């Protein structure tokens, strides 16, 4: 059904300048705690208590403030403490070390008290108070300026939203027909990048970026995105091919259970939740694991009909030989739902105390696919409250979703998250909102569309960029993400411009039959592979619909040698099997195996000529096929 702009061109999310009630309550709590610290910190000075107490007291006003009271060279420890405090806050962001800033702040106050041995420097209280006042004024002015800017942006967006939506809908390509999709040779070369990594023995991780396991370069995200790419490929192009494609997805799922992938949670649970005894990775928080992994599991099961990961204990997160956290697809989804229901914000943290709306979009998407798989009603049970809280607690005054908020303090950090990143996920559970987000995002993208030397359009981001997958310069990830989202909304002009930018700037290399971007991280390459094969609504259909019914019950290609046989198309209408194969290495004869035929029935394989054969009593057969370039094969019941 066509979507009309008038259906969704309602005013953007926020019409009035308020913060959400939960965030406001957190802010009030912060203010009360800080006011109490200031009062307690000032008392020793007012009451002329010992220099030690005065220095420690001033240390409660501002991290390291007590060192100013120590005087002399002790003052030098003040900036050192501020740097250390910034690093502690970074550790809190990066790995959920909630105790780090507290230890630095209170530890510095204590140390200043220990060091103070003579009357406190008389200017110290005034200096500390002046710095706190200056910081407060600066912060207030910044917030006010930001609010003014965002409100102006909201007004401009509301003015142009109708036209922007109409344009986004007008340029969108139609949704491609099911069952007719075929990978091009370039698509196959790109898919080999993912298959190579996924098909190595479980436990080996060659070809991955190994930097840290806490942040965006973590191996778990690389595994997830390789899995998403292969899952979408299977659903949209080759649902009737299992073989090495299904094996690759299972390998990735099983690799994910490796302790090296998820042991970050042992640390984060300890220093973020102060939980040393039961660091279950799929219990409290950690939506960056449950939400992301849930999508990967769901894609595999929905594509293949294989329910092995729904069996109790089928996903063992083994801490050591004595302790295993046994999970399955149900407990993973239940963890996401329970955390949504238990959280005051509804959205809940990744690292302890940090709520990232983007990971919560993954989480909600994982529930969509879970509902589709098992007929559950998890999404309807929580979506209204989730969206309401997304709007009230995690959306800025301009109507854009914010990057993150601390669930402990309610503090929002000024990171420009970008509307495009959320749109594809919302297309799975709130398509009208998704369309609005994309229409907003593409207005901003227009400013970075340039013309290259050949006159073709390409995206052009300034500077050298930043690759989330290895923390180095580069735009592979950004261009891949924009290309992927544009394709989801059928905006092939922007998608093609992004692909041109990828090809021109990110070191496209076609070697050994594999297409890769040498100047991108493994994560960015995985995203680029998915973006390349993406067409309109593919992500939504992979999540919310799955493969066509005929492919779920009809004949299957279950074995072909990798990379000798590449599968570009594999569909069934329930009785036949329609394949397009390519030789991966060299032309010649190859063995393939077909199963789920009718036992003992006779079939014909059409491949230029006709070859009749009978399925065995298990409904299987092995066939020898000659592969020369693009090789269509159609297996049909003999009349």
């Amino acid at each position, binding site marked *: 059904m066509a979507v009309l702009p008038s259906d969704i061109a309602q005013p953007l999310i926020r019409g009035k300048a308020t913060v959400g009630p939960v965030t406001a309550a957190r802010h009030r709590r912060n203010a009360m705690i800080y006011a109490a610290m200031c009062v307690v910190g000032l008392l020793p000075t007012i009451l002329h208590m010992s220099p030690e107490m005065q220095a420690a007291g001033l240390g409660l006003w501002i991290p390291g403030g007590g060192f100013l009271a120590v005087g002399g060279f002790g003052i030098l420890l003040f900036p050192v403490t501020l740097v250390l405090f910034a690093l502690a806050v970074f550790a809190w962001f990066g790995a959920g070390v909630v105790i780090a800033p507290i230890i630095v702040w209170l530890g510095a106050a204590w140390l200043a008290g220990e060091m103070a041995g003579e009357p406190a420097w008389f200017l110290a209280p005034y200096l500390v108070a002046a710095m706190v006042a200056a910081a407060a004024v600066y912060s207030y002015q910044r917030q006010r300026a930001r609010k003014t800017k965002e409100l102006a942006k909201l007004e401009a967006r509301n003015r142009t939203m109708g036209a922007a939506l109409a344009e986004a809908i007008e340029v969108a390509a139609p949704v491609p027909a099911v069952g007719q999709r075929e990978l091009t040779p370039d698509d196959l070369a790109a898919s080999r990048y993912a298959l190579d990594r996924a098909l190595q023995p479980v436990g080996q991780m060659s070809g991955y970026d190994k930097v840290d396991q806490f942040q965006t370069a973590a191996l778990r995200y690389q595994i997830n995105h390789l899995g998403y790419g292969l899952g979408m490929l299977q659903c949209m192009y080759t649902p009737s091919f299992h073989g090495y494609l299904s094996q690759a997805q299972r390998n990735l799922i099983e690799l994910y259970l490796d302790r090296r992938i998820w042991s970050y949670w042992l640390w984060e649970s300890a220093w973020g939740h102060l939980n040393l005894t039961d660091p279950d990775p799929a219990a409290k928080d950690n939506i960056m694991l449950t939400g992301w992994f849930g999508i990967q599991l769901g894609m595999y099961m929905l594509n293949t009909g294989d329910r092995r990961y729904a069996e109790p204990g089928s996903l063992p997160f083994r801490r050591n030989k004595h302790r295993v956290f046994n999970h399955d697809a149900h407990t993973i989804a239940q963890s996401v739902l329970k955390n949504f229901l238990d959280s005051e914000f509804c959205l809940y943290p990744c690292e302890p105390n940090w709520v990232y709306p983007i990971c919560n979009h993954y989480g909600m998407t994982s529930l969509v696919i879970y509902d589709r798989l098992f007929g559950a009603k998890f999404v309807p049970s929580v979506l209204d409250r989730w969206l309401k809280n997304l709007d009230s607690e995690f959306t800025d005054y301009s109507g854009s979703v914010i990057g993150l908020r601390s669930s402990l303090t309610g503090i929002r950090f000024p990171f420009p998250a970008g509307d495009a990143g959320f749109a594809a996920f919302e297309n799975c559970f709130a398509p009208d909102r998704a369309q609005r987000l994309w229409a907003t995002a593409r207005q901003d993208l227009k400013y970075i569309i340039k013309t290259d030397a050949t006159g073709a359009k390409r995206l052009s981001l300034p500077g050298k960029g930043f690759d989330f997958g290895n923390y180095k310069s580069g735009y592979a990830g950004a261009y891949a993400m924009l290309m992927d989202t544009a394709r989801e909304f059928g905006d092939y002009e922007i998608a093609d411009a992004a692909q041109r930018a990828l090809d021109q700037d990110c070191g496209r290399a076609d070697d050994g039959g594999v297409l890769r971007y040498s100047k*991108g991280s493994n994560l960015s390459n995985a995203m680029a592979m998915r973006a390349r094969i993406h067409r309109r609504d593919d992500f939504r259909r992979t999540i919310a619909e799955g493969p066509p019914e005929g492919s779920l019950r009809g004949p299957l290609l279950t074995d072909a040698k990798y990379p000798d046989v590449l599968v570009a198309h594999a569909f069934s209408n329930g009785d036949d099997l329609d394949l397009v194969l390519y030789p991966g290495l060299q032309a010649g004869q190859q063995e393939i195996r077909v199963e789920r035929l009718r036992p003992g029935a006779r079939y014909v394989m059409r491949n230029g000529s006709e070859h009749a054969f009978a399925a065995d009593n298990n409904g299987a057969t092995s066939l020898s096929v000659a592969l020369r370039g693009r090789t269509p094969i159609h297996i049909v019941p003999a009349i």
Partner: protein
Amino acid sequence: MPCCAFAVFIISQIVLSYGAIKRFLLRSGDSLDDLPSNPATEWRLNAATPALAAGSNRRFGLRTLVLAASIETLLAVGALYGYSLHAHHHHHDLAGVAGAPASVCVR
């Protein structure tokens, strides 16, 4: 994409600052062509190409180590200074108390 955006923002600020300093000191270029290739992308399942990602990790690790060592050194110097100051004051106070009349007071 991906999660943990603010932390990336922070890291990016550090990396970009480092890059700016490096460019300033070494006068290296600002072109996208200068970006290094990622050896991890070269790996093939059925080829003998070794995975070379470890080299870049070592470079990253070295940078981190240098930064951490600098901070640790600064902290150690500060702590030593603080301790010596404290010990000096303590010694001075005791000496003063021992040689002074009973009316000694701090304030």
